[in-house]
């Protein structure tokens, strides 16, 4: 195919992954949305999942979030999971702090929510109504709601796609620092190759319901400049865009 190394999933050297799917399939009518899919995520690992529209990303995420039935399939999920959705999905009739502690029982008090909101930089809006928040603020609240559950698996469903570029950069930094502090396993579903390369330890490309490619990034975050070009070229290749230089401007400006 090309120079990238394809690591067979069965060889992931972790003995007890937090997520394990073996031969997982999901069929709607005639379409196999997920087709004999294998996936393992190690504890504390940051995995990004790329894929075109219709590749099965959403279905995979819903499965991992426990929203779709998975009876009779080989599937292991951790007990504590939390999801951050692209559209925040705060309940508009509950104040921000009530959203953060949603479903945690009556014993969970306001100060706990307040400290979680403090951690995502939203302490001052703890008592606001969700509809008064900006997009970035809503996503911070949504992050606080996820992290207060101390999840073993944090699912991020294109959480930054609807934010403006500057807010997105700030949110990337926030997510990284939260991940480094709490160390949940993360599955970040995204369209954005740059985002995936900046944040993840491992990048998966989903295509027609299967993992079509996998890239591990050895270089630490903050010094990935040297590997990013070839990585981008190969990831874009798997997504169906051919580019030799791996530079965005060249990709768009290329003469046919």
């Amino acid at each position: 195919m090309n120079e990238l190394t394809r690591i067979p999933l069965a060889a992931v050297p972790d003995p007890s992954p937090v997520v394990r799917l073996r031969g997982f399939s999901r069929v709607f009518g005639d379409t196999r949305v997920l087709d004999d899919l294998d996936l393992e995520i190690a504890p504390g690992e940051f995995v990004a999942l790329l894929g075109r529209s219709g590749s099965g990303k959403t279905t995979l995420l819903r499965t991992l979030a426990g929203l779709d039935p998975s009876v009779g399939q080989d599937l292991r999920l951790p007990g504590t999971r939390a999801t951050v959705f692209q559209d925040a999905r705060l309940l508009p009739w509950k104040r921000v702090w009530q959203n953060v502690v949603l479903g945690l029982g009556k014993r969970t008090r306001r100060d706990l929510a307040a400290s979680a909101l403090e951690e995502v930089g939203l302490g001052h809006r703890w008592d606001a109504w969700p509809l008064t928040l900006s997009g970035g603020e809503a996503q911070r609240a949504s992050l606080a709601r996820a992290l207060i559950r101390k999840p073993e698996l944090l699912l991020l469903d294109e959480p930054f796609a609807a934010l403006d570029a500057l807010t997105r950069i700030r949110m990337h930094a926030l997510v990284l620092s939260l991940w480094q502090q709490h160390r949940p396993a993360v599955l970040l579903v995204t369209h954005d190759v740059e985002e995936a390369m900046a944040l993840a330890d491992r990048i998966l490309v989903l295509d027609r319901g299967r993992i079509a490619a996998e890239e591990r990034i050895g270089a630490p975050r903050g010094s990935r400049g040297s590997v990013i070009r070839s990585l981008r070229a190969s990831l874009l290749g798997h997504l169906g865009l051919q580019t030799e230089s791996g530079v965005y401007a060249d990709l768009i400006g290329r003469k046919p």
Partner: protein
Amino acid sequence: MTTKRDVLQARWLSPVALLLLWELASRTGVIPDHILAAPSSVVRSLFGMTASGELPLNLAVSLRRAALGFAIGSSLGVVLALAAGLLRRGDALIDPIIQIKRTLPVVALTPLFIIWFGIGETTKIALIAFASMLPVYINLHQGIRGIDIRLVDAARSFGLGRAALIGNVILPGALPSLLTGLRYSLSISVLMLVIAEQVNASAGLGFMIQNARDAMRTDIIVVCLMVYALLGLAGDSLIRAIESKALAWRPTLVEA
């Protein structure tokens, strides 16, 4: 400073002008008393009837009818809408019947109700209850059906069970629709009150109107019409007050 232009644009101007014109027409004999009493004599009758206790007594009778009918009808509407909205089997059982009932003008049922319940209070209250049930049912049912499925998914992904889901997501989400339904039901209650009181009443506003008609006392009729209008207005502002409290999270009210 109130300028001439402000006065001309004020919304009270045209009603007040109409009232003055009416008074003038009555005093000059253009409108005779047996056609329509002058505003001044209407006010005089209002005070007289209030002082004699005639109006408060009959108003209390009418209020009781409307309130009982509304309470029974709207509770029934809420219970049926919850059963149909939250249970699949409930929907299959209840909704078709309600949709059939919807095509039936309740006023047309008056003869049947009289045969069943006689010409006493029961028929009047039953008519009001039967008519005021429908708006509550239809609006609440639609409100429950129209809950944003993404919010339901989010709540489920955080492990909310069925009861918590109903309490935290579905009912608060359907509340605006319920209040709309209640507002319609209230105005229908007053409407049905007017109709029901035409049925051999021995007390109440409708009874007063009939007596006044026989005596050609248009002033008393106008007083009773005013009271009917005030009843509707009072009901509406009651629901509005509840709305602004219970729906404080909505952006229009938040910004106000």
